């Protein structure tokens, strides 16, 4: 056996014994329950994987799990906030949330949070997409990693179906859909452009993309 660490104090996997780790983990869990917020974890279901472009554009979201998490920053969201760009005004906020590993596994049945899954923050009415999961910060206190640090940014909706059981999320398609001829996207100007063009374009010319 290696003698590089003091075996009277620890077993070689960092300071702390199993009982100490369990105590520490329960304290973390209690602290998050005490001071955290209720978040809905929404796992992604991959529907059609494109093995050339390495993407799945037919994902669906069919379930959600209420779980307590602790915000890393309790004063504000991170990120750039509102940005005025070529796509108009977009919200580029991010958040880092800590979840107890033990509680996450218990509630979701998943071994860990996945990049691409979503978080619904009911208190802010905002939907976030997980972009990174840090499972080593804090760095193995008392010899064990006990939390997931989940970094997420406000979600870009790409017309996926939602049947998560969270009404605000499931109605995304109702309020932002551009399905077929229906155009209710609040940022879209398709109809305004068409109405304006009706008075100035010579309709004898054929539009290759359909009617003007």
């Amino acid at each position, binding site marked *: 056996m290696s003698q590089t660490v003091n075996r009277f104090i620890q077993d070689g996997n960092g300071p702390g014994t199993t009982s100490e780790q369990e105590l520490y983990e329960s304290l973390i869990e209690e602290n998050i329950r005490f001071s955290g917020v209720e978040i809905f974890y929404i796992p992604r279901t991959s529907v059609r994987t494109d093995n050339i472009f390495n993407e799945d554009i037919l994902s669906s979201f069919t379930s959600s799990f209420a779980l307590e998490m602790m915000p890393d920053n309790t004063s504000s969201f991170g990120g750039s906030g509102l940005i005025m760009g070529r796509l108009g005004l*977009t919200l580029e906020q991010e958040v880092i949330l800590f979840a107890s590993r033990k509680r996450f596994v218990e509630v979701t049945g998943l071994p860990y949070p996945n990049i691409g899954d979503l978080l619904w923050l009911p208190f802010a009415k905002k939907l976030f997409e997980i972009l990174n999961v840090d499972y080593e910060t804090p760095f193995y206190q008392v010899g064990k990693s006990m939390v997931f640090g989940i970094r997420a940014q406000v979600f870009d909706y790409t017309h996926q179906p939602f049947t998560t059981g969270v009404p605000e999320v499931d109605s995304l398609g109702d309020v932002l859909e551009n399905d077929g001829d229906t155009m209710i996207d609040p940022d879209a100007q398709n109809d305004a452009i068409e109405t304006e063009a009706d008075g100035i374009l010579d309709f004898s010319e054929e539009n290759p993309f359909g009617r003007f």
Partner: protein
Amino acid sequence: MLDGISPYYFASVRKTVTAFGTLFNNIKMARTAEVNGAGTTIKTIKVPIAYAPAQSYISWLRGAHSISRSTDGEAVISKTLPRMAYALKSMTFDKARSLSSMGRINNSTETLIGSPANRSTVKSMLQPMPWNFDFELLIVSKNLDDGYNIMEQILPNFKPTFPLTVNFVPGLELKLDVPVIFNGITQSDNYELQIGEKRLITWTLDFTAKSYIFPPLSDVGLIKRVINPMFSDTDPTIAPEPVVTVITEVNPFEAEINDPYTVIQEEIEGSGVREATVSASGESDAFGVSG
């Protein structure tokens, strides 16, 4: 120097911007059960488009991130993808298309809005100034397949030009073709960014619309008489006087644009100054010729 002209505005830039936008305002893309566009169509999406420059408070009030969404109990998101945006980048004078500065465009048949139905003048303007409008069209997507789906519906229609016919000046019936030329495309994809950033793929398509800017309209009298002296030679030293003078005019001469009239023509030998035009009865007199 330019003052003293009554205010006028044909919104030529606005019309060109609108006409360009309407090329792309009805593009739909289908998501299918299998890759390569095969299989059942799962969803058809009409791709939203917007003119990129905007006042921030307008976007604030109607955007997908709007604060009103959260108060209305709707989920706040960042943006909806895929989507398109376009903007007018620059304008340059197109000297190659420039016509004579003295040429005029007249409205002789249509009733101009705001003008009396019957009149002895017509609306007229000097030749429009040809300007090239450089546009960029952005296709923004979260994944490659959506973007290519949209792009492949646009590119085949520009060879590399697609003509639009725009009615620029109401009442003048001035319908001009505005060829829209596709110049090229660039693609940016931030997939190489450190993990922790959202992926955004942008295709930038560059176009040039060969459009026009218009000078003011003015009232000019109707041409009721044309005197056409015809010479036997183009050299005035050989043929100083016309052999015959053809005079064409409206009868009765007082007729306005909507009055009944006929056109009469008379040939007179030599040259001369016309001395009589129309009799009181409306019949054409013989033209007095001197010299």
